[in-house]
Every structure is written in C-alpha cells, then in structure tokens.
C-alpha cells in the first residue's frame, strides 16, 4: 500500500468517527447546521479523494450520500429519524469498504445498490411524508423497513447540549494545532526521560556540597520533572475517545432490543494512558450491552413498574487519586439475586448448601465467574455466558478492579477502577537476602512488624508451614529469603525485625516475610529478558531513586509457587464469600489511636493510610489545618489538640490517619497509633438499643471518631468540641 492510500485511510477513518459523533448529536438537534456541515465535509472529502485514487465503489456510495446531505445542509430536508438511520447505514457502508481496502488493498466486490437506492429514496420528502406517521408509534411497530425509532429514544450526551456548537468550533481549531505521533516514539521518549531522571538524581547527589552548582542543579531538577510530566501527558487521551462510540452502540441496541434509552455521559475529559484506554474499550462496550439487554426493561414493563418508559444509562468517568473510575449505571431492573443463586447452582458453580449461606452482596459477585449468564435466552446481544468474567479478566489484566452494585427494581452500577498509567506503578521497596525488591502496592493490604523478641512466639508452625495470627485468623506465611535462596534452616538469625507484608493476590491471601522495609516509590517498570521471566517470580525490574536496580515481585506467582493456591470454581466462590466475610468482620474492627492522652477509635474499614510526617507539612486555610497529600487537599481534624501541642516545634513528628468518608478523604491528627482491635457492641441502658458512637475496645468503652463530622473545606463552622466529646474514654 502506498503512502497516499494509507494517509487517505487514516483521514477517512477520522472523518467518519467525527461523522458518527455528529450524527448522534444531530438526532437531538435536527437543525444543527454546524453538525450537518461537518458531516457533509467528511463525506465530501472521501468522495473527492476516492475519485483521485480510483476507488469507484467508494466514490459511488459517497456520492449518493453527499446528494442527500446536500439537501439536508441546504434546509430542503429535515433530519428525521429515517434519514439519520440511512446516514448511519451509509457510514457503516463506507467503513466496511475502507476496511477492505486496508486489508486487501482493493475495494472488494460488495453490492451497494440497495443502500444507494435507499439513500436516493430518502431524498424525496414525499417518501418521508408517508413514513412520518409511523414515527409516532414505532415503539411497538419496529418492523418498518427502516427500523425507525422515536427521536427521543436516544438523547445526545447532556453536558454537550448547550454548547455543542462552541465545543465543535474548538475541536476544529484543535485539529489544526495537533499532529500525529507514532506510539513507539512516545515510548522511547518515556524511556529516555526515565534515564534523565536517574542522571538528574546522580547530579543532585554529586553537586549537593557545591553551592555554585546548587542553583544549576535545582534548575535541572525542575526542568526534568516538567519534561517527565509532559511526556506522560502526551500519552494521555481523554476517555471521550471511547465514550463517543457509545451513543451509536446504544442507539443501535435500543432499536434491536426495543428499549427506550437516554444516555448521559459525564467526565469525558478525564484522561487515561492510551494503552489503558484501548484495554477498557471492550469491557466498557460489553458493560453497556449488558445494561441494555439485562438492565433496562422494555418501555411497557417499565411503565407497569411505575417508572418512566425511557430508561437512563449513565457513563461516568472521574479521576480519583492514582486511579480513574469508569461507571456504567442504569435505572433498570437491577439483578435478581434469587435468579443468580438458581443459575449458579444449575451451572454447578456452587453447591446449594453454599449458596444458602451467601449474602446478597456475595451472590452478586458470582456473575463474574466464567460461564455465568442469567439471560433466559441467547440473543445476538448477550447471553452466551462469556460476559462479566471477560470484563473482569480484561480489567484485571491492566491492574484494575471491577465492582458491581445492584438493587432490584432500582438499577445496576458497574464500576471499573483503572490505574492512571501502566508504565509507572506505586510500589513498596522491601529488603531481603541483602537486596531490594519492589512489591506492587496494588496487592498490598497491610504491613505487620514483629520485633525480634517476639519473633519466636508470633510465628507459629504446623510442621513446615509457618503461620501468623492476624486478628485471630491464621495467615499462611511465605519467607521471601527461603523462597529465593532455598535455605532450609528454620531458625533465623536472632535480633532482627521481621516484617510481614499481607498480600492479596488474585484472591490468594498470604503474608510475605521480609527483612526490612524501605520507602514506597513510584517505579518505572522495565521488562526482563525471557530467561529471567521464565523464573516466574518477577514481573519486571526497575531502577530505584538511588540508582540501584530492584526486581519487581509478582505476588500472584509467589503465592502459587509457595502453594497458597485456590483452584477450581467452588474455591473461587468460597473465596468470594470469605472476602465478603472479611469485609464484614472489618467493619467491626477499629484502629485505636491516642491523641493528647486520650484514646479514640477509628473504623478500620475507612482507614486508607497512616502517615508519619513532620508538623511543618501541615498548612492552614484560615484557622483550618490542611494537608497536601499526594496532590489532594485533606482537611485535618485536630480537636484532640495534637497540632497545638507541637506548634512551636516545626521538627516535631506527628501521625495523620487518612480516612475515607464517603467520596472524600479526611485526615485525623493523632499522637500515636496504638493497636487494631475488634470492637464489641454496647447497649444503651434502658433502651437496649445498640449504642452508636462508642464501642468496647480492650474492655474499655472508647469513643468512635465520627468521620462525617469533620467539616468540609473550606470550613464554615468549627467542629471544635466534638473531638473531645468523642474521645472521652469512660472507664
């Protein structure tokens, strides 16, 4: 294929993508002249170039389309649903020919006469007049030749309605100021920037003692950081790149399935690494299909249930820390848990006994098992039993997570959590056998330190299997050094701390024992040569900030190697149950903290991190202490008076417990973290009601910190007093 043809193909694809977006918008505002002009331009460009390149079939088809579009643009015809359907068919026709050209370098032998004929028919308004009455009642009579649908069946994304024209104008000018860059070149740039960062680190170390060079090296430092950020940005693309495909999919599906659906999209400007965006395209499409097929009910059913006949499908993307959340939610039938239970038993995924023990939430997770589908019959849309497990597998492959929430009669929400980028991952650096290893944070759930004097008693053995009692439950342990150097001696050198990294890898929970912990670091993943990949324990290597190399451990592979295996679907189901049980147990567990001499409890399930930092990191907005943590501004609660106590000593270290409260994060300043303990219920005297706000910890009544009471930023009213009230320890 020559360069000219290749260029033509790329340009035409882009033109058609634009056309598709405009067409679905056009449905919402049939008089959008700017939209029509844009569509006309795309088709016209294709026609012009094809004539030049000699693609006759493509030219004929584009020509027929152009005639129709010409009438629309000149206002002689209005963009009714059949016209738009016709234009979408034209779009598909053009696309398929382009694909043939790309694959075989010629147009292929297809027959377009029928489509061309239809496009010509649409040009005569008389034809339309006949069809128009059908428009009103199509919800039932979908058998019409053109498969029409009420215009309201599909709404353009809400947020772009008011300023669609303006954003389009911006898009046009953006096209002129952008250029195409090969992804391999971007990857190479990323690599080189990584190299530059390391060189910078070394320069900074070498020049630290020379005041003349300090200024220069600081400048180098800044430029490098900027450059790194810019290159990372260059790889980012807005999720609108895949969201924009959805209106069309929803439109087509709602016709096939006779649904009336309103599509809302939010957060389209959220950006994600290009490769990740590619990776979630299929899962997302699948989720949308599912929502239409299994979620949103036919209009009649909806009305009978007292809902609006038109269902709503919401696509939402938002960045949350180092993750991007993509949500697909519908207001459909939700998921009938009974059906799932019956189906799972029928498919032999779990036993009836087991199923009876599972809670609703646990049962919901079953739909992620391979071979699960509740669709009563197989349609062209879904129901083949390769559904949610594919979504989960694809998302987990890129280090993401899938969650599902459903309420019968209210709707279903599928939530994908995607890391911002693949090339750089947060990791904890651990030490073992005298060298550093990187442990991906994603699999890490907590860290336990065992002082040397307790090592002998804290680690228990069943024959050769070491175990640790983590809050009353036995956790299998894996000694990293034994795994790596095949040492057999049971006794380890005394006088050393043990650290247990509690890992949760692909559903296998175990503790990895290491000799030491270093700082968490954002690491750049470098691939290993095939010889070392074959070892199976390492997923890559990385260069640390100090220039040392570290191997990246693969928690899943370690679990497997050590025999912490869970195989078979029954086990998976059990695990899901265990998981949920753990979550439930955790809800009753508390982090016991001490602030200015008093003890208080923080619900462990809400604790994200415990950070030790110097008090100078705390800044103030007015009188409100805040913490700039990983780019996010957290309100810091200090009614315990921890900050006030060390105010005059900027070097002092304090501990901030970072918690989740609904969708926001808050910090709580404390002097020490004492322990993790299970709380006991307390009954209020007289009423015998479970008392809220206090719990029984270590046989002492302890106040529970009410996270929702932490004032919003910017603070309007003082939350003073609450802390002291809550932290009151009643003996």
């Amino acid at each position: 294929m020559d360069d000219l043809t290749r260029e033509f193909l790329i340009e035409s694809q882009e033109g058609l993508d634009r056309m598709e977006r405009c067409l679905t918008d056009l449905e919402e505002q049939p008089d959008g002249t700017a939209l029509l002009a844009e569509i006309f331009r795309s088709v016209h460009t294709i026609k012009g170039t094809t004539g030049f390149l000699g693609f006759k079939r493509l030219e004929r088809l584009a020509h027929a389309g152009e005639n129709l579009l010409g009438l629309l643009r000149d206002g002689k015809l209005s963009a009714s649903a059949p016209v738009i359907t016709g234009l979408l068919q034209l779009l598909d026709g053009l696309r398929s020919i382009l694909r043939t050209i790309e694959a075989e370098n010629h147009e292929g032998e297809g027959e377009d006469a029928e489509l061309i004929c239809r496009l010509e028919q649409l040009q005569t308004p008389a034809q339309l007049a006949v069809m128009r009455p059908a428009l009103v009642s199509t919800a039932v009579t979908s058998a019409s030749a053109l498969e029409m649908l009420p215009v309201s069946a599909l709404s353009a994304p809400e947020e772009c309605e008011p300023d669609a024209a303006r954003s389009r104008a911006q898009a046009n000018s953006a096209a002129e100021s952008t250029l195409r860059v090969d992804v391999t070149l971007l990857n190479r740039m990323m690599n080189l920037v990584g190299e530059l960062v390391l060189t910078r680190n070394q320069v900074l170390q070498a020049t630290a003692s020379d005041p003349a060079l300090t200024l220069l090296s600081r400048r180098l430092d800044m430029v490098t950081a900027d450059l790194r950020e810019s290159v990372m940005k260059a790889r980012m693309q807005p999720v609108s790149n895949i969201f924009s495909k959805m209106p069309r999919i929803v439109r087509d599906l709602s016709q096939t399935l006779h649904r009336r659906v309103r599509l809302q999209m939010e957060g389209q400007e959220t950006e994600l690494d290009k490769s990740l965006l590619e990776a979630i395209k299929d899962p997302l499409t699948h989720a949308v299909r599912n929502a239409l097929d299994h979620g949103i009910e036919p209009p009649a059913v909806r009305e009978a249930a007292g809902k609006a006949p038109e269902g709503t499908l919401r696509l939402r993307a938002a960045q949350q820390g180092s993750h991007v959340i993509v949500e697909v939610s519908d207001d459909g039938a939700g998921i009938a848990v009974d059906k799932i239970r019956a189906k799972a038993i029928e498919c032999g995924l779990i036993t009836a006994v087991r199923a009876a023990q599972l809670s609703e939430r646990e049962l919901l997770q079953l739909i992620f098992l391979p071979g699960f589908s509740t669709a009563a019959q197989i349609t062209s849309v879904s129901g083949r039993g390769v559904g949610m497990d594919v979504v989960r597998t694809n998302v987990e492959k890129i280090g993401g997570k899938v969650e599902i929430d459903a309420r019968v009669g209210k709707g279903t929400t599928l939530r994908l959590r995607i890391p911002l980028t693949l090339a750089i991952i947060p990791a904890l650096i651990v030490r073992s056998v005298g060298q550093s290893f990187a442990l991906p944070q994603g699999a890490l759930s907590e860290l336990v330190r065992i002082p040397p004097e307790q090592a002998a008693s804290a680690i228990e053995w069943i024959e050769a299997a070491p175990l640790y009692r983590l809050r009353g439950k036995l956790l299998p342990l894996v000694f990293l050094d034994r795994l790596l150097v095949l040492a057999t001696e049971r006794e380890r050198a005394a006088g050393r701390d043990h650290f247990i990294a509690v890992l949760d890898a692909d559903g296998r929970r175990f503790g990895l024992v290491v000799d030491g912990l270093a700082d968490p670091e954002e690491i750049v993943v470098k691939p290993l040569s095939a010889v070392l990949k074959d070892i199976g324990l390492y997923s890559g290597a990385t260069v640390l900030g100090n220039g040392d190399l570290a191997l990246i451990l693969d928690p899943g592979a370690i679990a497997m190697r050590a025999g912490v295996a869970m195989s078979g679907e029954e086990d998976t189901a059990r695990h899901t149950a265990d998981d949920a049980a753990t979550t439930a147990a955790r809800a009753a567990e508390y982090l016991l903290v001490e602030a200015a001499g008093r003890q208080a409890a923080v619900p462990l399930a809400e604790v994200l991190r415990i950070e030790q930092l110097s008090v100078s990191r705390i800044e103030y907005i007015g009188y409100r202490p805040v913490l700039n943590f990983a780019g996010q501004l957290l309100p810091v609660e200090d009614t315990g008076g921890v900050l006030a106590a060390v105010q005059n000593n900027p070097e002092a270290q304090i501990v901030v417990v970072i918690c989740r409260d609904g969708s926001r994060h808050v910090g709580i300043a404390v002097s020490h973290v004492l322990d993790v303990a299970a709380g006991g219920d307390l009954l209020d005297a007289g009423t015998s009601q479970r008392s809220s706000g206090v719990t029984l910890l270590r046989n002492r009544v302890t106040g529970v910190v009410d996270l929702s009471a932490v004032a919003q930023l910017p603070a309007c009213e003082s939350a003073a007093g609450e802390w002291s009230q809550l932290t009151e320890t009643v003996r």
Partner: protein
Amino acid sequence: MSTQAAVLHRMEKSASALVEICSVRLEQALFGVPIHHILEIVGSARPQPVPLAPRFVGGLVHYRGDVLTTVSLRQLLGLPLLDALQDILILESPGGCFGLLVDSVGEVLTLPAADHEPNPSTLDEYRKDLFSGAYKLKGGLLVMLDPERLDPIRLGAARTS
C-alpha cells in the same frame, strides 16, 4: 538504523585481511570478542544478582534506560565467582542487547584474519558450542567468543532442552 549501518560497514571491513578484536581476560586466559558486536564497555560494575536465575546469569545492569541481563563468563566456564568489581561488555544480538561479565577488558587487537583457526576437534562439545576458534598470538592463544551463542535466551533454551 544508523548503528546497524555502521555495524555493516565495520563488518565489511573485517571481511578484509585485518580483524579488530577486543580482548578480555578471565584469570590467566585471554578471550576475544569481535569489536563490531560491542555497543559499549561498562567498567567496574557490580550487577544486581537475580535469585533463582540460571547459573550463567551474572545479574542485571542498567544500561541507557533499559535493564539488561548479563551473562557471567566465569559461571559459563565453571570458574569460581569473583567478589570484585568486573567489567561488562554490552553486546548486540538478534534477541536484544545483553551484557557479558568478564574479569577485565584488555586492549583492542588488530589481527590478520589468516591467523584464525577453528575449534580443535578434541575440545568438549559444550565449549565447542561457545567458542568459535582461536587466533594464534605471539604469547599464546586468543579464544574467540561468538556473541550470538552467548545470548542468554539461547543459553536458557539450551539449558532446558
């Protein structure tokens, strides 16, 4: 692209009467690597060991943004490990770049191609596979190493088969 062209250019030159060879030392023995395979020489390095790796792997080195696997010539020839800084030749091979860990890198010799002789038939099969003949120097023999045969991927495959 340009490095490939340069390599080709040098290969053409080596086809003529004179050959440029980088000499490396391992204990008392002298080995040689054709210079056009060498991308760079990294002096006094200590590669990061990889637990559980095959014996011939000398560890990892950081080279221009990539992490390369090194092959330890000592381990390959069954010599005891050396606890000292070693030199690394960064070599180019079809499977990607890798490092060759040697005691020290010596001078570059320009030798007449006529001085080369193939492996003697008495050499054991294992070494026949690693060596590609020798050059007769005044003071002794310079055993030629073939970088393509030292590629860790190939060595790994040979080990398992």
